[in-house]
């Protein structure tokens, strides 16, 4: 998870688009753009000098003055010196000028892989191809390939020396950006130049880094694989190195070749050699410049591994666009969620409002239904009351209407069910004329009270008592206002 986060963070902060400082596949200039590195020169039992190099944004190096540091390795002074340098820059390049070994191999490192790092790792492992009795068994090897043919110059440093150098530097606070051999760096730079120009070396080479020298015999443009074709001069006083160069060059190269030689690296007393009628060219190069050159890749670090490569800078635009779109989407989502929640509140308010209206409507409907029932009830009651009549008043008026000469008996009032009518039936006794007068008075009083006579049945003689006549009327009851 932390690896994922750190790699994602590097995509954002731009580190992913810059080379990894420990990437052996790239030049130091690329790896330390805008930063600095300390080169520690020496090796073996003593360290000779340190020099700080600052790289600008384009990878161009700016060298500070080299500081002499002739300390014995492991001494307190040496540790103190390293610690002070580590404060200036956290990265160091260990430049070995002593205790290295070299030989020639008919095999090229490039035959294993196109990847520079993998190539170096395979060279270390393939001792059968890159081994020689002049190289220690535990030597960490690098192979500098011939520019156009098979074959390489193999150089090595004992692993114990590498380990102790790395440990001391790391204990002082450094991270190791690379471990290189100064003379090999000069040679690699030269051969890579030829390779780019598709050229082969046409004369024997002498590489001198100021302390040690490498003599590379060229035979028919290829590395001389014979005994003595490749030799080196290390762990000797500089003066003796000069002498040995002279002796070996004079003894070997002039026999094999026409005396043509190319001396690479630091100047030395080559005029002496010239007097020996050798055809010598000199290509001056400081070893410090070769070490940081873009064309130099060899590295002797024990934990050499392929680092992640720098991503194309234009990819950063896409990464940031993706992050921006993601962020924008999240922001939009947040706004939409906020909006949806706000809408939810309004929806709830509407629902409550609707609930309130529905309740009010139901209450009004219920009230209306209750009122309707009540009104229906009252209406029936009103109808009932309107259809009623005053029975006492009716009987009394009828009795009062009968004259004294006439007797009334058997008065019956029968209301008709559901109607505002009643059947009125009575019997009158007396003279016919008096009965008629009585009937007229009864009718008048009924009309006066609001009754109406709807139908008169034919009078019928009453049985029993003589002179009795039964009258039957259908009367319409008066309607009372509600």
């Amino acid at each position, binding site marked *: 998870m932390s690896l994922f986060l750190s790699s994602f963070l590097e995509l954002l902060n731009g580190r992913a688009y810059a080379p990894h400082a420990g990437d052996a596949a790239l030049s130091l200039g690329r790896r330390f753009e805008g930063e600095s590195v300390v080169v520690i020169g020496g090796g073996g039992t003593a360290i000779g000098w340190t020099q700080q190099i600052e790289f600008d944004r384009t990878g161009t190096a700016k060298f500070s003055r080299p500081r002499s540091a002739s300390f014995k390795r492991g001494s307190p002074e040496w540790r103190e010196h390293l610690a002070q340098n580590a404060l200036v820059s956290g990265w160091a390049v260990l430049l070995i000028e002593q205790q290295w070994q070299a030989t020639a191999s008919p095999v090229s490192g490039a035959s294993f892989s196109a990847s520079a790092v993998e190539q170096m790792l395979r060279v270390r492992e393939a001792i059968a191809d890159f081994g020689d009795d002049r190289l220690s068994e535990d030597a960490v090897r690098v192979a500098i390939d011939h520019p156009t043919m098979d074959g390489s110059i193999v150089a090595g440093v004992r692993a114990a020396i590498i380990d102790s150098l790395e440990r001391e530097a790391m204990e002082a606070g450094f991270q190791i950006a690379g471990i290189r051999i100064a003379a090999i760096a000069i040679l690699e730079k030269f051969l890579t130049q030829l390779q780019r120009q598709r050229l082969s070396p046409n004369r024997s080479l002498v590489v001198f880094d100021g302390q040690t020298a490498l003599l590379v015999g060229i035979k028919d443009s290829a590395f001389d694989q014979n005994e003595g074709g490749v030799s080196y001069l290390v762990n000797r006083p500089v003066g003796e190195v000069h002498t040995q160069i002279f002796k070996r060059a004079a003894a070997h190269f002039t026999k094999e070749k026409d005396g043509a030689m190319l001396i690479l690296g630091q100047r030395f007393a080559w005029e002496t050699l010239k007097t020996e009628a050798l055809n010598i060219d000199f290509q001056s190069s400081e070893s410090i410049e070769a070490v940081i050159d873009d064309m130099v890749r060899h590295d002797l670090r024990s934990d050499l591994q392929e680092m992640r490569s720098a991503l194309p800078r234009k990819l950063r635009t896409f990464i940031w666009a993706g992050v921006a779109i993601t962020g924008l989407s999240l922001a939009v989502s947040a706004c939409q969620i906020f909006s949806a929640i706000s809408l939810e509140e309004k929806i709830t308010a*509407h629902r409550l409002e609707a609930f309130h209206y529905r309740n009010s409507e139901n209450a009004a409907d219920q009230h209306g239904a209750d009122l309707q029932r009540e009104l229906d009830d009252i209406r029936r009651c009103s109808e009932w009351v309107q259809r009623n009549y005053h029975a006492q008043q009716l009987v009394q008026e009828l009795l009062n209407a009968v004259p004294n000469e006439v007797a009334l008996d058997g008065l019956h009032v029968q209301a008709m069910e559901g109607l505002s009518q009643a059947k009125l039936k009575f019997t009158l006794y007396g003279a016919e004329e008096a009965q008629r007068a009585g009937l007229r008075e009864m009718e008048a009083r009924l009309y006066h009270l609001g009754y109406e006579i709807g139908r008169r049945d034919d009078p019928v003689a009453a049985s029993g008592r003589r002179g009795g006549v039964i009258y039957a009327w259908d009367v319409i009851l008066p309607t009372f206002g509600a």
Partner: protein
Amino acid sequence: MSYYRNAFIGEALGLVLALALSMGTSRWQQLQRRTLLETGQQATQLAHAKMLAEEKLEKMEREGQELLTFEKAWDAFRRPAPANDLGNHLRNKLATLATQAGLTSEGTTVAAEAKNYPVGGATIRIQEVSINVTSESLPALLTWLGEVEGQFPYARVESLSLTSYASHSVQLGITLYHPVEQGERFSQIQQSLPDVARK
């Protein structure tokens, strides 16, 4: 490049998830907007329905004002009694009034149960009570009849028979129909006026 593979995948997944989330929340927001619109319309419709219901109620009250006034005027005359006791209540009251008036009552009958009676296209429940009272005084009989009508203004004399006998006594037989009020409203009135009902 492989070093950053997981970071690329993570960013791509994040982007896809963020876009999916954005689309999802957008859809949610659209649904919420639609729901808001629907609930708003529903609230408006219900508000309108409520207004209509209230207007209908107001109209009903306005149009029923005459009936309500009638009810108010007649409310004072109510002598409600439990439906099942109304018949006995009437019979006892009629007999009591007859006794108080010095009349002889006989042949009092009470219908076993209330019956429907048609009134203006509707029906009401009525309780039927019959009684015969006899007296030698016709005015006493008529006074009793008036008293009965006064005591029970809702009662209707459905039939009346006035007959004289040779013994100079007069018999007045009446059949009374008295409406039996029923329903919630009446029950409420009954519950709120228990003392009045008993009186």
